[in-house]
């Protein structure tokens, strides 16, 4: 099995910020199918906190093959697009491959897929493979940073427990934003992966 380098939503979005949103970038993110919704939530929060821009999350099944130009029209309000490809959709992948220029002009495009789908995409979409800025294995932040955050009582769970016993969604979002603000910056070392 090929081991791609690990990342988290925090690092990925920080990387987007480094490169700049005016530079087209296309990332293939590999994750376990069961964790996709957690990762999506992580990315949403990080984009809001770190970049302060709008964000579009699309399910691949909702993308119409004959309307790709509408999906990928450059929109200054939402320069980051996440497409979750949760199952193998050959027609969509072929369409993305042939119209790859649409993807690479739409700001930052993040394709989130499980390993099997990602490998099939790379095999069947040579143009896409070639234009991908990077392929990374993305993990939920609570898994990778768990102990470090737990020690500081900064995991979403720990903070939610301490503030809101019922752990409402609003509480979790507020918590995530607070946690992100307290995370390491470029001048402070990261916790070990």
């Amino acid at each position, binding site marked *: 099995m090929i081991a791609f380098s690990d990342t988290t939503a925090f690092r990925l979005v920080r*990387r987007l910020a480094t490169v700049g949103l005016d530079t087209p970038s296309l990332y293939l993110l590999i994750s376990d199918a069961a964790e996709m919704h957690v990762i999506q939530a992580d990315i949403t929060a990080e984009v809001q906190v770190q970049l302060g821009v709008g964000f579009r999350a699309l399910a691949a099944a909702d993308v119409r093959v004959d309307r790709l130009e509408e999906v990928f029209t450059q929109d200054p309000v939402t320069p980051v697009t996440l497409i979750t490809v949760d199952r193998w959709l050959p027609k969509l992948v072929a369409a993305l491959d042939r119209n790859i220029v649409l993807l690479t002009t739409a700001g930052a495009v993040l394709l989130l897929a499980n390993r099997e789908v990602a490998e099939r995409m790379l*095999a069947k979409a040579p143009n896409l493979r070639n234009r991908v800025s990077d392929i990374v294995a993305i993990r939920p932040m609570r898994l990778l940073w768990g102990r470090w955050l737990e020690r500081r009582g900064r995991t979403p769970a720990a903070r939610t427990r301490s503030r809101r016993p019922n752990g409402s969604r609003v509480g979790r979002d507020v918590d995530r934003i607070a946690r992100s603000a307290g995370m390491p910056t470029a001048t402070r070392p990261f916790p070990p992966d």
Partner: protein
Amino acid sequence: MILAIIGEPPIHVAFANTAELTRGSQMALVGGIGSGKTTELLLTQKELSRHSDAVNIFADLADYTDLNETNPGAILATAGMRLYSRLRSQLNKAAKGLPEVVESAYMKLRELAFGKTSWIYEEEDYGYDPDHLVPVRSPGVMKLRFPALWPKVEEIQKLLLAIASPLLESDAQITLLIDGLDRLIQPEPFRQFAEQDLQALKGTKISVIIVAPLLLWYDRSRFLQDYFDLVKHIPAAAADPKHSAFLRQILERRGALELMDRGEISTIAKYSGGVLRDLLTLARSSAEYAYRDDEDRIGRSHINAAIKQLGNRYLAGLGNTHKRLLRGLIENGQFAIENSTARELLVNRQVLEYFQQRA
């Protein structure tokens, strides 16, 4: 990227010369993904602009039409609409209007390109029912070299020529530079475009330079060589990193020495295999790894991480057959180009071709 075999002009110069000397010539450019085909087209466009009467239309077809479906006529329609815009802006500057024939041709062309909605009465009787028509084919004695133009393509051709007529009458040198069709990967959809759109442009004095899928270069039917007046191939590797300092020079001229030592630059050049896109990817990824580690300079560990990451990208998605072929190439130096899987490896740049330069 400027690729030149010693003794021959660079590709863009050869294309520009042919377009200027033989108006109406058709040329094809093939090369692996990321080999610099678009750059060559843009350089050709720049080269052609040396003459004041040059009308150069550069179009990435994917910007105009959905390449997911083969739609012959799309190249002609795109060319017609772009020529119309060019004419209109020229005449607007001179405060003149376009001839009526050009305006009406453009309106019809738009209708054919994007369709139209007509309002009709439901009960209208057309006098025949197309569902009940059955084709009866009587074979002729001659086999056409290329299939006949589709009626719609023929119609678009006439409209395009009507739009281009003011330019052609003034002896302007029109060149269409069409990018994007190499992304079709498979030769067959491209062949359909060529057999309709490009055939329709033959004899019109409008030159065409088109990017074609790399697989056609290896096609036994020699379609490219037979159909086009001039075919140029760009290898994916711009230079052999073992024998050329070209790649190192590129990085150094972009200021790499401010971020890394010469040893690191050589390593990046070596592991790029000579592919410019990979050279830049490796340099960029290494810089990102260094940034992540809060380092001011790119070190060996950052470059190694970037190389590993790029290598994994190339390995991902390969099946057993692909791997067997790669092993055969590494261990025995054997690589059967006739094999379709082997060609896939070439198209995807998992295998690179190096050409010895002629002295």
